[in-house]
């Protein structure tokens, strides 16, 4: 195990019509970090996130997860990552428990461990009674909670979330923040994108601001914002860069 859980080195990704979605992006996420990834719509956050979890090809650069290259050893990388996209479309034809069991099987979680973790998180998010129902019957928020439980079922080293707080009620958001802190205390790390700057400011020990695919600012949250709020910094960066 290395202290650097995620290393992105000079990542670039261009789409078919020549649009550079991510341009020479480099950053490092270490164990214990809650790393906020900030940028306006179309800044390249989702493209970068998809590249680092191994679901999107990129032209140049290197991504290392726990020391392994996502291109050369994707299975080893994915076994320590949990990823939840901004709009988690799950398998509607499965029940909640079938989906969680499926994820448990894929990550090789023992029966006892998955039972304990599912019970813990499903009870916390008041989803236990609904686990026997088809996912198609779930509301958007319930689907998001189920996706988050599936992420925590296999105790990932790196949790990658794309806009995790959109659609969650205040109570669920509170529990999620606590679970994120808990994971980091246990030696994991979290990398997540958000539009909610107040959350980033309070929750993250590190932040990165991206604009037009390029990294504009990054580092410890207090260093990036200085004496001002993250919102002020963000607005200034977006306007002037």
């Amino acid at each position, binding site marked *: 195990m290395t202290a650097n859980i995620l290393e992105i080195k000079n990542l670039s990704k261009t789409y078919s019509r020549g649009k550079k979605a991510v341009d020479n992006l480099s950053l490092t996420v270490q164990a214990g970090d809650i790393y906020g990834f900030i940028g306006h719509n179309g800044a390249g956050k989702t493209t970068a996130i998809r590249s680092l979890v*191994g*679901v999107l090809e990129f032209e140049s650069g290197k991504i290392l997860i726990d020391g392994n290259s996502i291109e050369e050893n994707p299975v080893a990388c994915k076994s320590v990552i949990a990823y939840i996209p901004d709009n988690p479309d799950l*398998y509607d034809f499965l029940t909640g*428990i079938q989906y969680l069991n499926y*994820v448990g099987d*894929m990550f*090789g979680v023992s029966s006892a461990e998955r039972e304990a973790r599912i019970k813990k998180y499903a009870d916390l998010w008041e989803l236990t009674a609904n686990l*026997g*129902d088809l996912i198609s019957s779930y509301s958007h928020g319930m689907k998001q909670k189920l996706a988050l439980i599936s992420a925590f079922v296999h105790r990932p080293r790196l949790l990658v979330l794309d806009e995790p707080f959109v659609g969650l009620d205040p109570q669920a958001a509170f529990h999620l923040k606590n679970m994120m802190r808990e994971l980091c205390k246990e030696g994991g790390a979290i990398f997540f994108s958000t539009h909610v700057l107040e959350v980033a400011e309070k929750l993250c020990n590190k932040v990165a601001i991206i604009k037009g695919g390029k990294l504009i600012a990054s580092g410890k949250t207090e260093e990036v914002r200085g004496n001002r709020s993250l919102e002020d910094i963000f607005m200034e960066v977006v306007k002037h860069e």
Partner: protein
Amino acid sequence: MNKCWLLLKIQLLGILGINAIRHGGKKEKQRVLAIGFSVLILVIFGVVLSTALSIGLAALGMADIVPSLMLMVCTIVTLLLTFLISNNVLFAFRDYDMVMSLPVNNSTVIISRLLTVYITNFLFGLVFIAPSMIVFAVTIKASVSVLAMMIATLFLAPLLPMIAAMFLGAIITAVSARFRYRNALNILLSIAFFIALIGISGSINSVNMEPEQLLTEIGNILESTISNAYPPADLLHSALTNGDWGSFGLFALISIIPFALFVALLSKLYIKINSALFTSRSRSNYRMGTLKASTPFKALYIKELRRLFSSSMYFLNSSIGMILLIVAVIAVLFINLETIETSMGIPGIMTLFRSTAPLLACFFISISSTTSASMSMEGKSRWIPLTMPVKTMTIFNAKIAANLTVDIPAILISGIILAVSLKTNLPETFFLFVTPIIFACFIAVLGLIFNLKFPKYDWITEQQAVKQSLSVTVTFGVGILVVLIPFGVAMVSGAYAVLTLVITTLLILFVTCALYGRLNKTRLYL
């Protein structure tokens, strides 16, 4: 009417790929052009087939039955094909909420959705009926009045079978919607109706007559069969041969009135049926119990099977070949095969039939590829398998295994039935099982490769991924060719039919291994 056109236009922009050509990237344009090219080949094939058949019948002095015969063929095909997509067109489509929140009547929504099916069926009818009409018109030197009837027939022909199929589909959907296991019930009822439809179609064509008599009396037999089986075809026959506008008017009414009645009836029940379909029965009483762990492959395989059986559209369209295979071999059981050789006077025909029988199973397997749509069916959820810590090949193997789970039981049952009914010897029996199993592996791998090459992830209705995707069409086309070429060679070579089968089996095995090796080098990305 304007609103109906707007709703239809939105659907056609997606179905015909117009926006993909106008605004899509290079890859998307290539995909749409490839679909267009495949459709063009099918159209040419249909026109040539219909023209050749019509000219042949005209040369035998049977020109007057050509339009009604083609009408009946199109009716049967339209009935079966529309039935397979019926519930997915009208009910529980993905943009239902958005469409129903617009200021339009239920009947406008229903008509707009029926029109997409109508346009498909109309174009299909145009390919098959129009050439026969032209041959008929030239042969009988048709008057202007008859020409007008013929043009109107092209527009009227698809209506009745389409509405009949939609009506059956709507009944099944409405009944199934009341139950918890509605998908399973929908699949079972659909299979039962489908077999009943095939049975009815089959009984129409079966004539109890000696083969010699059949050849000389074929014209009269066809005419009386069509008249008895499908009265609208009889009306059309009477209208076109006698220039009888009365018969034609009746044919038009029989075609239009059910359409209007169906729309009126469904408008009343539309929201009720859709609400029942969208209302998931949640019990909300789950209690944590023991969870059984299994391997990633088993988890993926079970997920694939659950996906297949969760959708009557996906299951019926990708597995119908296996149901047809069982129906076909059961039908063979009731034919007295020994009399065919003597009555037809073709020595060795039974030996030829025995040695080519495995290709019959292969024919049905070629229309039973679950893999040709299995990647597309992942749709917006495809981020899930892509983020799982498993080799890409494990995902592919699970999809192939699900396809074989559908195929192999039917191959084994049909092999046993064919071995008994054809009284095959040991080597023939061996190939009755081995050739179809190898071919099933070939189709499963081929389907997956084509689906990876031409995926359709952005579907709104499952029909777009299952029936309107290039991968399904190409897999079917290549599969049929791989069956028809050795079948043709076996028929021509006669004595070398067994050798042809052996070589074909080995070749398919070799190609399957090569394709599987290619699959092994594929990486999956969004």
